[in-house]
């Protein structure tokens, strides 16, 4: 029953707000880049936008992960109180909003600047398209398929630093003896992330594509999928009991400070190592595709521009969109964020060893996987997350049970 009152309050406040917003030059930008490295990257964008003169970037950072921020952003747009621009993940986050005609059409600008020519991989721009029109600006590429390790922890325990997933599993008992957490993880979405990485790294490209793109229930019931779930069952033995409710950057800092051996986390974790002044290759190491199959998905962040009645706001939105894809912004922003740029025509020679690895992998389009966000609706993603976290927490749940449930989800997926 409290939801009804909640709705009413939301509605009332949105009416009040939209009546009050007239200033065109203050462009409110919402995003959830709030950890140390992320905030630095957001600041780069804000400063470059303000430097263009005239319009101002009003920072609307929402603390917490996308899980917290996305509903706030979406309900503000639906409630008629849209911000000037907002970050969302590349993919189907905003699908329904675009369908309902709530987003500014960027096609004209995109054609003028020739986005299709330089945005790479081209899948990124496809994710922004609906009925041939472009509704978002991809700003970076983030991939989930990375494992971050602290080599000195392994050396202290008398084992070689792992080169792949199997090594980590084998080294785990030695690490535990030393009181080190073999695999640091946290909140539900991080646990789910381990599962999606294992799906690509243990299952291989073929299985990943069958499940993500074709929603092939037979593949989901097959032996390769079982191997993935078995690896995931190994993973649940590697985590410490304190993982419940831990933030991702806390987990990263466990690795950083030598309290944990490894973390499976997307490449945004790198910005935490960077902010802490650690050097890739010596202080920490990175294993794309868990060192098994070096393939990366191309999720990432994109900016959406909710439609506004005010032409001044629309103008400011297009100006921001154009800036986001520009060469200068792409270089400075992605170096700060630890992500890969969306342009194929810029040189990132200042990037560190791990980023170079990533750039190399993505240069070959055979190594590019579609991200969950592009493949599954947020509803299906949620169902998979429920399953993976339940399995991870409940050591009595068997691989077969989990697989049966997974098949059910994939069969229903749209």
């Amino acid at each position, binding site marked *: *029953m409290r939801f009804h009152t909640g709705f009413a309050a939301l509605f009332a406040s949105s009416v009040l707000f939209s009546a009050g917003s007239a200033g065109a030059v203050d462009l409110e930008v919402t995003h959830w880049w709030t950890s140390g490295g992320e905030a630095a990257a957001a600041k780069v964008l804000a400063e470059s936008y303000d430097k263009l003169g005239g319009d101002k970037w009003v920072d609307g950072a929402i603390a917490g992960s996308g899980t917290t921020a996305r*509903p706030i952003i979406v309900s503000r747009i639906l409630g008629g109180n849209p911000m000037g621009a907002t970050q969302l993940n590349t993919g189907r986050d905003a699908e329904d909003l675009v369908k309902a005609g709530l987003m500014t059409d960027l096609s004209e600008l995109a054609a003028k600047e020739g986005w299709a020519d330089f945005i790479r991989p081209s899948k990124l721009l496809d994710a922004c398209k609906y009925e041939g029109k472009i509704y978002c600006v991809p700003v970076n590429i983030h991939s989930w398929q990375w494992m971050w390790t602290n080599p000195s922890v392994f050396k202290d325990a008398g084992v070689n630093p792992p080169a792949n997933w199997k090594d980590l599993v084998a080294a785990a008992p030695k690490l535990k003896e030393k009181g080190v957490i073999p695999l640091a993880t946290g909140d539900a979405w991080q646990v789910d992330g381990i599962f999606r990485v294992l799906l690509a790294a243990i299952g291989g490209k073929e299985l990943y594509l069958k499940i993500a793109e074709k929603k092939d229930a037979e593949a989901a019931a097959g032996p390769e999928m079982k191997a993935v779930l078995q690896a995931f069952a190994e993973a649940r033995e590697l985590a410490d*009991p304190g993982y419940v*409710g831990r933030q991702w950057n806390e987990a990263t800092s466990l690795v950083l400070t030598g309290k944990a051996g490894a973390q499976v986390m997307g490449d945004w974790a790198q910005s935490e190592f960077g902010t802490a002044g650690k050097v890739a290759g010596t202080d920490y190491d990175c294993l794309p595709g868990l060192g098994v199959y070096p393939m990366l998905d191309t999720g990432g962040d994109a900016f959406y521009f909710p439609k506004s009645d005010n032409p001044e706001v629309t103008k400011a939105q297009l100006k921001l969109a154009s800036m986001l894809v520009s060469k200068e912004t792409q270089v400075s922003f992605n170096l700060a964020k630890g992500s890969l740029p969306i342009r194929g025509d810029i040189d990132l020679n200042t990037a560190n060893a791990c980023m170079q690895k990533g750039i190399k992998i993505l240069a070959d389009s055979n190594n590019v996987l579609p991200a969950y966000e592009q493949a599954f609706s947020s*509803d299906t993603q949620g169902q998979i997350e429920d399953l993976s976290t339940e399995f991870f*927490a409940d050591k009595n749940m068997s691989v077969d049970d989990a697989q049966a449930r997974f098949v059910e989800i994939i069969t229903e997926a749209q």
Partner: protein
Amino acid sequence: MPNKRPFAPLRNFNAKVAAVPMIATVLVVFVGCTLWTVVYSFTSSRSLPVLDFVGFDQYERLFRTTRWNVALKNLAIYGVLSLVFSLVIGFILAALMDQKIRFENTFRTIFLYPHALSFIVTGLAWQWILAPTFGIQKVVRDLGFETFEFSLLTNSRYTIYAIVIAGLWQGTGLVMALMLAGLRTVDDEIWKAARVDGIPAWKTYVFIIIPMMRPVFVTTLVIIAAAIVKIYDLVVAMTNGGPGIASEVPAKYVYDLMFSRGNLGQGLAASTIMLTTVLIILVPWALMEFRPTNRKGGAK
């Protein structure tokens, strides 16, 4: 004019005008939105409401979902335990406070303080207290009991009880305050009469005082029950539904499905079930409690 009775609808005209905003709110917000919720729970709505009816599909999926069933079970456990314990502990605390003790104000403040905190703060504080890496478990282990195990939060089977404990810590103070107010309304003469008759104190409480406090109990029950059904923030702060899905609650399912997973139909179906459950419990009770013939009785 002075002798003429006013036209019936205009009787108490000012009072009726004053009630109009409230009536409108009730009709539009409560009744209107409830109907809207029920209607759209039969559609295939995703992020946006669409009138595409799919029958009971959403309900079928709802009851096939493990997470929802776990959530219902958790609500039942949480509901029964916190109802029973907060009433019992609250009443006992109030009875103890009523013994004309010294520093009563101080104690009352201490017990009532947790209620001044938001559930988020309570949840975080208890998360820290119960976390195995730096809470009670660590303190006791540091004292020398190396094998001491107290991991309510991280063991899927007991997490919901950790939430019950935190909920009780927060809510019992209020129950105590209400009960204490109720106890103070009991006439001293009754106590004197009981003492003259040589009835032991506990018997006086159970057979005389508690029945006399029926209205207070009803009020308290309604307040606690409402708090139970809408439990959400405490869970979010303490465990976020984890480990896994072990401490999920219905309200959290509704919120997640509606807002972060863009499946309005499913979320509305879940909230309709929540509403139905409340109605099933509430309607028979309300009929009994508020039936007109009861007017003369103690309860209003």
